[in-house]
């Protein structure tokens, strides 16, 4: 019996040691061996000098692009829409640096936990060159932290919370092609003042960084631009279903406008319950880009009719969007129309990464491809006048690359109709 125990203990320890050695991420990703190409730079020295090393691909290996988007759950149309944008970019681009591109998709869960999980998953794979994501700012804050610590670049097509590119909290390996909500909040306040001509407003946020910061920007601008009054700023929790008490409280202040820049599940319930709350019958309802999706219309039903929503302006200049992007999008996704609003931003983000890879790539005599991580980051931040669908993109040092244009749509007969500017 004793001998059996000793044997099994030894074997267990041996197995554990083998497992630890074979685990991904244990082997260094920096280059090793191979004679360098005489012209240009020596990959070995460049990669050794780069604080985060290089991503190495064999001559026939595909380049691995990661994505971290909200592809399941109530906000899946937001994430899937961006993911289709990435797929269209890969399909239309073909090869990058002579290599095919493959995608590693993960789910950001539209929450801090989801962002942490997805970033940890991606960081464990040493072949990931960069990540397009996240969808939700709550996930983005955590994911940017984790990926920046490993030198993996995170380029977001959809995060809009101001804190992500605030100099005080900005992560070094993070940038975004989506607008900064400082612009969206101001645009919505402008719309409320000049078009709707309302004098008082109330806001609801769901505690997420995106909603909380966006409604604050709106409130600040509403107060300063048109001397409007904010009757109350309320908060709810994600997953809550009963909003009668908070809506009754808001109704007591008699606001002309109710702005709730939150997500599909709670947004739909609030829209329905607001229509049933005494005192809110004449209040205009408005949301933001989190609910600009057909899923919201299906969930809210006729209660959403006449509602306004701010979001990125999809009236892009040029013909590429309509003639090339949309047909390819429909072919890849099987949908009859885009299901959310950040697909073009995802397309531009993917191409920005590819352009940066082309700029900093190194090859050795054996045909291996090396992409130094810090050089890639610098190349992306150096993007200037990049001709994307969303406009001419130039990244500033804080990570805002977007050509931010906000539009307001209204729900008319169950469809989103762009009405402003």
């Amino acid at each position: 019996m004793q001998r059996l125990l000793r044997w099994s203990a030894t074997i267990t320890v041996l197995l554990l040691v083998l497992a630890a050695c074979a685990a991904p991420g244990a082997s260094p990703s920096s280059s090793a061996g191979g004679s360098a190409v005489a012209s240009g730079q020596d990959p070995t020295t460049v990669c050794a000098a780069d604080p985060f090393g290089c991503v190495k691909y064999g001559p026939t290996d595909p380049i691995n692009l990661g994505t971290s988007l909200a592809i399941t759950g109530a906000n899946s149309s937001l994430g899937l829409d961006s993911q289709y944008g990435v797929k269209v970019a890969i399909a239309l681009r073909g090869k990058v640096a002579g290599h095919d591109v493959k995608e590693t998709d993960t789910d950001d869960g539209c929450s801090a936990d989801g962002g942490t999980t997805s970033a940890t998953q991606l960081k464990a794979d040493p072949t990931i060159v960069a990540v397009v994501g996240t969808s939700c700012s709550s996930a983005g804050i955590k994911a940017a932290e984790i990926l920046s610590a490993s030198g993996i670049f995170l380029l977001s097509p959809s995060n809009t919370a101001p804190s992500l590119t605030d100099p005080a909290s900005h992560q070094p390996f993070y940038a975004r092609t989506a607008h900064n909500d400082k612009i969206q909040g101001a645009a919505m306040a402008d719309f409320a003042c000049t078009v709707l001509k309302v004098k008082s407003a109330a806001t609801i946020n769901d505690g997420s960084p995106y909603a909380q910061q966006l409604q604050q920007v709106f409130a600040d601008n509403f107060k300063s631009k048109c001397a409007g009054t904010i009757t109350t700023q309320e908060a709810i929790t994600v997953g809550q279903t009963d909003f009668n008490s908070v809506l009754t409280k808001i109704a007591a202040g008699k606001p002309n406008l109710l702005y709730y820049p939150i997500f599909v599940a709670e947004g739909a319930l609030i829209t329905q319950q607001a229509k049933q709350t005494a005192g809110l019958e004449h209040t205009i309802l408005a949301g933001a880009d989190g609910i600009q999706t057909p899923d919201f219309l299906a969930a809210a039903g006729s209660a959403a009719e006449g509602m306004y929503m701010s979001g990125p302006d999809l009236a892009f200049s040029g013909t590429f969007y309509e003639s090339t992007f949309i047909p390819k999008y429909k072919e890849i996704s099987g949908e009859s129309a885009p299901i959310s609003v950040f697909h073009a931003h995802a397309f531009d983000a993917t191409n920005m990464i590819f352009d940066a890879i082309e700029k900093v790539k190194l090859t050795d005599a054996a045909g291996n491809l090396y992409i130094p991580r810090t050089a890639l980051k610098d190349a992306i931040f150096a993007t200037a006048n990049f001709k994307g669908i969303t406009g001419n993109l130039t990244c500033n040092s804080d990570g805002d690359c977007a050509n931010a244009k906000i539009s307001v749509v209204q729900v008319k007969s169950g469809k989103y109709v762009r009405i402003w500017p």
Partner: protein
Amino acid sequence: MAMVRRLLGLHERLSVVDVVLALLRIGVVVLVVTGVWATLNKGTFTLKAWESLAVSGVALGAVYALIALGYTLVYGILFMINFAHGEVFMSGAFTAYYVAQWLFLSGFLAQNPVVAFLIVLLVAMLVSATIAVVLERVAYRPLRNAPRLVPLITAIGASLFLQNTFRGLYGAGVKAYPSWPMFTGSLHFGDVEIRVTQIVVFVAAILLMLGLYWFIERTRTGRAMRAVSENKDVAAMMGINVDRVIMTTFAIGGLLAGAAGILYTLLFNQVLFSMGFVPGIKAFTAAVLGGIGNPVGAMVGGLVLGVLESIGPYLLLDGFNIPTPNQLTTVVAFLVLVLVLIFRPTGILGTKDAT
């Protein structure tokens, strides 16, 4: 000191625990009274607003009462808390969504809304009852003689299993029920405006509870259920098929939960794979609040909890100028449970054993 004790009618030595509990009692009362007085003084809500909050609390409470009945009936017979009951509630509502959607798309709902509603209700009740019975057979019956902790853990495991099974079957997205054309609008009773859906929910819940009462008191199976809950072994000796009775209890709990699911969707018309978890825990709270094992207690507890949840946070906390008290709704609900368990563990109406 002895004089004081005799005056106060205390016959034993006061321990530290007694003093702390007494102080806690006084503290809670003072806080509640101050909060309520300050809120009413502040006047953010009109009387009409409080009334409408109370009405929606009663409607939600009726749903909690129906789910709580499932918990209480099972506890009465098996002395175990069926933590998977929230998922039983979810399964009926979620499955019936597809039936409702099919009826809506085929136009049947527009033509015969009442019949369509009854079909959806029936489907939900049957699915929930089936899940409850299968749960009992697979997860609880083999553990009938195990120590009390084991079925409890199994119940939690079953809850997670059912949640994720339904997530796998129906997806992780939120689905919205089509609106029922006959349940729109509201009625006025004097000054108070009550929505038709709230009336339907409340009336349906009352009817189901009366039906349950009649079933338990007036039928043979009901008598068998009462016998088994009193003493399982003697009931078996009297010739009652205990297994069959337990299965019937779970089935009835399932039927009520399925109905509660449809009524819940009348109030908040979204279904989601995780929609059963929190109402399940709240219904368990309601059952304990009213007295676990006592069906009338479950009904009373459900209504009390619904009203407390609706009015409580604002009534208590608005006076202290705490922002957005509605985010503390669940806190208030569970705080009530904790206080009830400290000061009156048998619940408002007393447990089955105490009566």
